[in-house]
């Protein structure tokens, strides 16, 4: 099996597990971000540069959503 296929399959299994066990959107998105960051870091040497660049917008978008979640939680705690 191709290395790219292994990476996609790993992420698919991760997403599937998260869908089964996680009930809230906040935690789900955070777990997706963690999964993507781990894959990008661990498999970075196997991924060609163009693909790495292609993954960056997804990582930035999920980070942005994560920041909104954190801000929301902080506001909740403060109020």
């Amino acid at each position, binding site marked *: 099996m191709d290395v790219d296929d292994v990476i*996609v399959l790993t992420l698919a299994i991760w997403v599937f597990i998260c869908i089964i066990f996680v009930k809230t959107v906040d935690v789900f998105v955070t777990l997706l971000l963690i999964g993507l960051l781990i894959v990008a870091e661990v498999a970075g040497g196997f991924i*060609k540069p163009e693909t790495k660049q292609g993954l960056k917008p997804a990582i930035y978008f999920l980070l942005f959503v994560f920041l909104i979640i954190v801000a929301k939680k902080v506001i909740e705690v403060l109020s």
Partner: protein
Amino acid sequence: MKWKNIAGAILIVIGSVLTFKGAIETNQSLINAGIGGVFLGVVVLTFSTSDYVKYDAFKAVVLPYFELVKNMIDALDLKSKAVYIPPYSNLPDGGVFIPLHKDFDIDLAKLDKNTMFIVDVGREKEMGLLITPLGKELVKMYESYSELDFTNAGLHIVENASAVLRSLGLAKSLTVEESDGKIKVYIEGVKINNCSKICEQIACPICSSILLSIAKALQELIIVEEFKFDKRFIEISARRIGGVDKWM
């Protein structure tokens, strides 16, 4: 590649519909499934950029070139083993010099990328064949995949090539070590199995790229000592013979 694009697009569409439906019904599990679908669709689309040729077609196209170069080396009756030259001002991509005699000398100042047959020199010891390394494009890939510049980075950096070779399906693993001034390279699971004793003079792009990476990482010329091969395993012995300044 086309099928991956279609699969990615379908996942994004299904994911979007599920997210929308989940939002209307305020069902968080459905929203999660939708987001997961869109996420996987984006990942599949991102990873669908690679384009490969079939292995049989690759062999049919590339192997005759190997044969041509090997026949040329045979015909020239060059006695010495290959010397890998790291990139320097005259040869920005580095080079492979195959001296005419075992007792050789190289004047790097006289070499440049437009020279191939080094015959117009005063001493016969300096004669030989200078070729562009067959693995220079692979070296560029090693550097771009690992986002590192191999220049003067030390021998350990060359092992980054292992991930790229595995990713491209060319070899399974690569180990590089040095002891008592001897550099040993072990390549396992090599896909192109076309090795012969002539590899000591002109190696395939895989071995050539690794030897050139070593020369670049050490910023020293290295001479091949021996190639051993057994089915899909290759062991290369090489030796440092000094930096660019020494041979100028």
